[in-house]
C-alpha cells in the first residue's frame, strides 16, 4: 500500500461543477490512467480516495488535495504523467508526493483556507469600501444567520477569520483576500463572509457576480503554514 498525495486545481473551465462531480471526475481519470488504485472490500467496492475539503459549486481553486490509496508504489513521475494525459480540462496537477508511514486523513489536518474573491463594485467611492472592510476587521464579533434546507443557524463569523480581510481596488471591482480557519467544529464559507459584509457593513458590491477562488489549503501550526504536499 502506498498513499499518493496530489496537489490539483479546479480551473475556470469547471467552476460550476459540484464537489461530488469533481471527485467522480478524478475517479474516472484514475481509471483511464490505469493507476494501481486500491478498492474497499465488500459488496460494493469503491475507490480509496480522500479529499482535503469540499469545494462549492461556483468556486475555483489552485490548491486542492487528494490522497489516492495505491496497491503498489509506481514511479511518481510516471504516475503523474499518466494521469496528466487523461485529466479533463480545468484539472491540472501541481504537486505530487507519496506519503510515508501512517499519515492522518487530509480532512483532519487541514485547518486553514485562503481565498481570493473578485466582485464588481456598485459604488465609485473607495472610502466607503475601505470603511466597510475596516469596520468588519475591527468588529469583536459578527453574527450571521446561515440558511440551509435544514433550517436556520446563527454563526459567529469572526472566530473563523485567521487574519483581517485585505483588499485591492481594481477598475470597477474589488479583490478581497480572506484567510479562514477550518476547525473541528466547523468553519464559515467565503460567500457567507461576503454576505455579512453586504448585509451588515454596507459593502457596495454586486454580490451575485462574485467569483471565488481558493488560493491555498494549509496546515497551520504555531505561526508556521505548510501545504499538505510539503509535509
Amino acid at each position, binding site marked *: 500500500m502506498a498513499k499518493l498525495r496530489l496537489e490539483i486545481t479546479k480551473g475556470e473551465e469547471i467552476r460550476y461543477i459540484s464537489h461530488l462531480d469533481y471527485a467522480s471526475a478524478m475517479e*474516472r481519470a484514475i481509471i*483511464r490512467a490505469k493507476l494501481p488504485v486500491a478498492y474497499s472490500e465488500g*459488496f460494493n467496492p469503491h*475507490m480509496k480516495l480522500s479529499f482535503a475539503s469540499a469545494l462549492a459549486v461556483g468556486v475555483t481553486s489552485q490548491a486542492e488535495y487528494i490522497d489516492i490509496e495505491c496497491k503498489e508504489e509506481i514511479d511518481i513521475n510516471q504516475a503523474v504523467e499518466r494521469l496528466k494525459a487523461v485529466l*479533463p480540462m480545468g484539472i491540472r496537477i501541481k504537486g505530487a508526493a507519496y506519503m510515508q508511514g501512517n499519515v492522518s486523513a487530509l480532512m483532519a489536518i487541514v485547518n486553514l483556507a485562503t481565498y481570493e474573491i473578485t466582485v464588481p463594485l456598485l459604488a465609485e467611492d473607495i472610502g466607503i469600501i475601505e470603511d466597510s472592510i475596516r469596520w468588519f476587521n475591527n468588529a469583536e464579533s459578527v453574527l450571521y444567520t446561515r440558511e440551509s434546507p435544514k433550517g436556520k443557524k446563527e454563526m459567529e463569523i469572526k472566530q473563523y477569520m485567521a487574519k483581517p480581510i485585505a483588499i485591492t481596488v481594481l477598475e470597477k471591482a474589488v479583490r478581497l483576500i480572506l484567510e479562514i480557519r477550518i476547525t473541528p467544529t466547523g468553519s464559515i464559507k467565503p460567500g457567507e463572509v461576503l454576505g455579512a459584509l453586504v448585509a451588515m457593513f454596507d459593502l457596495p458590491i454586486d454580490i451575485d457576480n462574485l467569483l471565488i477562488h481558493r488560493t491555498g489549503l494549509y496546515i497551520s501550526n504555531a505561526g508556521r503554514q505548510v501545504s499538505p504536499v510539503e509535509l
Partner: protein
Amino acid sequence: MINLDPAMLNRVIKPARYTGNEWNSIKKDHDKVAVTVALSLPDVYEVGMSNLGLKILYQILNNRVDTAAERVYAPWVDMEAEMRERNIPLYTLESLKPVKEFDIVGFSLQYEMSYSNVLNMLDLAGIPLFTAERDEHMPIIIGGGPCTFNAEPVADFFDCLVLGEGEEVMEDIIAAVSSWKKAGKINGRSGILRSLAQIGGVYVPSLYDVTYHEDGTVAKVLPNCPEAPLVVTKRVVKDLNTVEYATRPIVPFLDIVHDRIMLELFRGCTRGCRFCQAGVLYRPVRERRPELLLKMAKEMVDSTGYNEISLTSLSSADYSCLPDLVDSLMGELKEQGVSVSLPSLRIDSFSIDLAQKVQQVRKSGLTFAPEAGSQRMRDVINKGVTQKNLEDAVSAAFQAGWSTVKLYFMMGLPTETDEDVLGIADLAYKVLDLYKEIKGRKGAKVTVSVSCFVPKPHTPFQWFGQDLASEFERKQQLLKARLRDRNITFNWHDARTSFLEGAFARGDRRLGQVLLKAWQNGARFDGWSEYFKYDVWMDAFNTCEIDPYFYATRHRDFDEVMPWDHLSSGASKSFLQREYEQAVTEELTCDCRREHCSACGVCPGLGVEVLDWGSRA
C-alpha cells in the same frame, strides 16, 4: 462566443448543465470546417446526454475533418428565465456559439411530449419557428428518432425529418449541405431542401401537400415536386459490425440518467409485441459479433473511465451469445473494478441466473414487464409469456435472494375487460404468495406500475381508439381497491398526459397550430409532471377548434388513410392489419429471429436480413 454571467450561473440549479468542457467533448475551429452541426435532444441535459443515438452521431460527425458537431439541450426553466432576461440566445456547449450560426440543428425526437421544447428552443435560438419563414441564412432544422415516423404534428417546423438509423444518412446529409454551401447556397433554401429530399430516408415535409375528407380524415398526402418520393422509407444499417460506434462518448461531470457505458449488443427486436412501436421501427434484428463487443467495451473503459457497462438493446437477454459475452466482459474487466449490468430482464429463469451473475450487490429489486395481467390479454398483445414463465422467474429470483420485485403493466389495451385489469392484482398477490411458499415467511415487496396504453403509428394497434381518460381513471380505482396490501405499492400514470400523448402520436399536420398555441401559452417540459399543463393544452385545442378525441380515442377503419402512410418503416400495412386481427382472436405470432419469417416485409423490401449468431452457429 456567448458571455456567461456568473450571476446567472450562480443562481440556477446545476449550472454545470450549461458550461461544457466535459472529457471527450470536441472543440473545433469553425473556420476550418465546411459544415457545423448542433446536435440536440429537446429535454434537459441529463436526459439528452443519455441518448445513445446522439452519442454515436457526435462521434461519426466529429470524425469527419470537414464537420464540427456540438451539443445543445433544453435549458431548465430557471435558466430559460435568466437567458430571456439577459437576451442570451441558445448556444452550444462546445464553442458557446449561438445555435443560430450553425448550418444544421438536429433534434432527436424521442417522445411526443418534448415537442413544445423544440419550439421553445428554436425561439430561444432566435430561429423562426416555421420552415416557411426561414431563409438560406438560417440553420437547416432536422429531426430524427422514433417520432419522425409520424412527426406530422411538427411537420411545419422542421425542414426535414430523417427516418431510421442515422449513421449513414447523416453523412449523406453533410455531403449535400457541404456541396450546396460550396456552390454558394445555390437555389437558396429550396435548393438544399430539394436535394435533401432525394436522399433515402429523408422526408422534407414542405414538399408534400395534405388534403382532407369532409369528415376530417386524411384524403391524400402527395409530393408537390419531382424530387420528393411518393413514399419515404427508413434507412437501416445492414451490418452493425461495420459501422462506427460511440467508443469515445462524452463523460459528463453531472450525474446523468444513464451514467455508464452503453454497449449496444444488437438493434431490433422481433418478439412482435403488438403494442410496441420500437419492435416495428428497428426491424430486422442485427447482432454485433461478441469479439467486437468485447473490444468495444475495453476501448470504452479506457476512453471514459466509467466502471459500469450496461448491455443495451431492446431486449438484451435475447442476445445469442449473452452468457459467454458476460463471462468474458467480467473476466477481462474485473481488475479495473468494472461491473456489468442488464437494463431489462426477460421473464425466465435464464435471465435470473444472469442477473445473479452480474449483480454482486442485491441493491435494487428486479424488474419484469409482463405488460398485462391475464393470460388472455398477454396473448392479445403477443407477449409470449405464460403464467408459468412468470412464476418460474419470480421463484428463481426469490431463491437467489431477491425480495423486491417491480412489475410493469399497461391498461387500456384492445379487448380489455375489467377481469383483465384485475388480473394485474391477482399476479401481484401471486408473487407475494410465492415468496411465502419459498421462504416460509412473509417479506416480499412488490411494486406494480401501470401505464395508460397509447396506440402508436406503425403498430398493429394503430387503428385502435385509446381509452378515455375517465375510463383509465375508473380502471385505476378498480385496481387500487383490489391492491390493498401494505407489501404492494401501486403506481399509475396520469391519464391526461397519456391522452395528450395519444392525440399527438397519431396526429396530423393540423396539430401544429395547437402545439404553437400551447407553447405560446407556456407549455414546456410536458414530459415532467410538475410542468405539465393540461388546461393550457385543452385551451389550445379549443382555440384552434380542433378535437383531440378525433385523434386519440377514435377507432379507425382499416381502409382509412393514415397521416403517416407515406412514411414507411418497411413493415407493410397488411402485416400490421393481420397482426391486429390475430390479436383480437388471441392468436400468437412467433419471433422471426429464430423461428420462421412472419412476412412483415422489411427484409425483402429494404434488402436486409436478420443477423443472429446463435441461429447460424
